[in-house]
């Protein structure tokens, strides 16, 4: 309250401090009514903010859905969601760097929640020959019954069928073309077995595949794991990798760290597909640039709105200053108004996003026919399913809240230098 003193006959004044702070919470009510004063402008501004929220969260949700789909499909072609290997195999894929006791490992991993299927592979580089022609290839010994269940590569055959028993080989169509062999021909494989021995294997080609990935089509040969173990002199429970297919990419994220143990290194999809991670990071940068541009456009529209508000309400602000309201309290009131408009926009934007993503995550988005055919040839889904991105939400909401606060503050700061008399006269 007032603290004014008369000292030695000289009039002096010291600070007068009415309890203005107590009034601040009540500014919320006034601010709410103020934003309803010009409903059309409020809704336009809120819609701008909603659009920014929608763009940020929906675009990111589509992107996350596409990324998850790509990771899952890519994992289900060859690599799996998780691979368990000898600790040094990733850096030194020598035939000796194998793992033993694969049956126990598979049984253990398959018993864990979130695991769909587990299979083992042994692999080595070798020379493949047919008649006069020879080409280098990667020979993969697979548990073909299991691979047929989870690996989409097994359903990409352009000729013949997938492996159904010992002595059979499933090879890339480009390699078959290079070797000049067709279904029913014999494929001779020569490699280096454990401790430098010769690994020799003859298999009948029962099928050829086209994966859409040239490096697979011209260099991968699948044979039964048992055949590989015999030819490369591995033990019956010995292999190089245990492939884990999780029920979802999210499950694999949780599972991967749990599966590593002494003598067994666990690699998740990020380790197995570094190019995919890089591609995602590049796309994410592009998305953030889009976010920034959208936010800037919307923030400028909010600046414009608040410039109009200040212009229109200048006489009112003059009255408020005249009756004793300090300029910074008026600025606080405007900031509250900006926050309320922003909250309206956020609710609207999130509502539309939630409904849109909710529906599309069920129905999916049909891709254009040409892209669909291309994706089908790669055993990828023909529809894209968005996944709500909470990460984008945690970026979009603070960006828009801070942005609108800044947008309101920029014109609002003019009030610091506004004089009540000039403000009141502006109505005349």
């Amino acid at each position: 309250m007032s603290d004014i003193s008369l000292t030695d006959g000289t009039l002096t004044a010291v600070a007068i401090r009415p309890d203005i702070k107590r009034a601040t919470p009540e500014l919320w009510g006034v601010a709410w009514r103020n934003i309803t004063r010009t409903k059309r402008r409020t809704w336009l501004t809120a819609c701008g903010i909603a659009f920014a929220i929608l763009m940020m969260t929906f675009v990111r949700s589509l992107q996350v859905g596409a990324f998850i789909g790509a990771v899952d499909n890519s994992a289900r072609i060859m690599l799996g969601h998780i691979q368990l290997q000898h600790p040094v195999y990733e850096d030194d894929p020598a035939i000796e760097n194998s793992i033993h006791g694969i049956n126990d490992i598979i049984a253990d991993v398959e018993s864990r929640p979130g695991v769909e299927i587990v299979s083992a592979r042994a692999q080595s580089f070798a020379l493949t020959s047919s008649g006069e022609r020879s080409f280098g290839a990667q020979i993969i010994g697979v548990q073909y019954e299991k691979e047929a269940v989870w690996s989409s590569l097994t359903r990409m055959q352009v000729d013949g069928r997938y492996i159904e028993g010992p002595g059979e080989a499933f090879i890339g169509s480009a390699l078959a073309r290079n070797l000049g062999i067709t279904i029913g021909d014999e494929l001779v494989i020569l490699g280096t077995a454990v401790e430098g021995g010769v690994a020799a294997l003859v298999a009948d080609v029962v099928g050829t595949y086209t994966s859409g990935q040239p490096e697979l089509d011209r260099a991968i040969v699948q044979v039964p794991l048992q055949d590989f173990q015999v030819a490369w002199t591995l033990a019956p429970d010995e292999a190089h990798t245990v492939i884990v297919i999780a029920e979802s990419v999210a499950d694999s994220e949780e599972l991967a760290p749990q599966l590593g143990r002494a003598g067994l290194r666990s690699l998740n999809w990020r380790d197995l597909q570094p190019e995919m991670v890089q591609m995602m990071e590049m796309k994410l940068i592009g998305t953030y640039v889009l976010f920034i541009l959208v936010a800037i456009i919307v923030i400028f529209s909010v600046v414009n709105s608040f410039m109009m508000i200040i212009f229109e309400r200048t006489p009112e602000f003059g009255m408020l200053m005249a009756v004793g309201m300090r300029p910074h309290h008026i600025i606080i009131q405007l900031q509250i108004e900006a926050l309320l408009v922003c909250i309206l926009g956020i609710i609207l934007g999130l509502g539309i996003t939630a409904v849109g993503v909710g529906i599309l995550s069920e129905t999916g988005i049909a891709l254009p026919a040409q892209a669909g055919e291309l994706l089908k040839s790669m055993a990828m889904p023909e529809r894209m399913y968005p996944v709500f991105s909470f990460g984008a939400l945690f970026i979009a909401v603070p960006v828009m809240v801070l942005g609108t606060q800044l947008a309101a503050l920029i014109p609002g700061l003019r009030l610091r230098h506004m004089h009540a008399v000039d403000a009141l006269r502006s109505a005349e």
Partner: protein
Amino acid sequence: MNDVVVTVRGATRTYNEETIPVHALRGVDLEVHRGDFISLAGPSGSGKSTLLNLIGGLDQADEGDVIVDQVSLSELNENQLSDLRLEKIGFVFQAYNLLPVLTAEENVGFVMQLQGMSKTERSERARETLASVGLEDLADRRPGDMSGGQQQRVAIARAIATKPVLLLADEPSANLDSGTTEELLQLLKKLNEEFGMTIVTATHDPMVMAYTSRKINLRDGAIVVST
């Protein structure tokens, strides 16, 4: 108790408009006593509004001093002037300047809200004050649903609800017809005579001047007649 509410000593105010100095006030001296009902009259540009603004702490004199309720305004900074206006001075404006989103009761309570008064207390006092200006039935109406005269009464209620030591009115009748002006002036007269409210009004309306107990005429920034 000091009987002088306002002392103006040699106040000068010059505005520089496009490099041409405009002398709005030239060494004005004035004393306003408790219970005065004063009209500041004069043609446009005579300095009456400038003098009212100096007394109200909305503007500051280039030279001289203005003392309100024993406080020298020249020694106060902007925040202290704001607080002084909040605590000691009630304002009535030509254009009413009510907050359109608030009801009459909330408009009257707004200044009390700034003072930190509790909601219950200010609601009670706002209703009492509205009753004193004859608007008890319109407490829940917004300004847009009221006539100009009713809005000006709400503005007066807002100005007096905090029991200020001084009520300043700048052309309060400018937007009102003669009948409504008459009612307004009777209200101000009642506030002055029955409640001892000190009132200073800037006007060029003879009807307003006729109601005031002291008439001060200004011309070219100086007081030429004081009765």
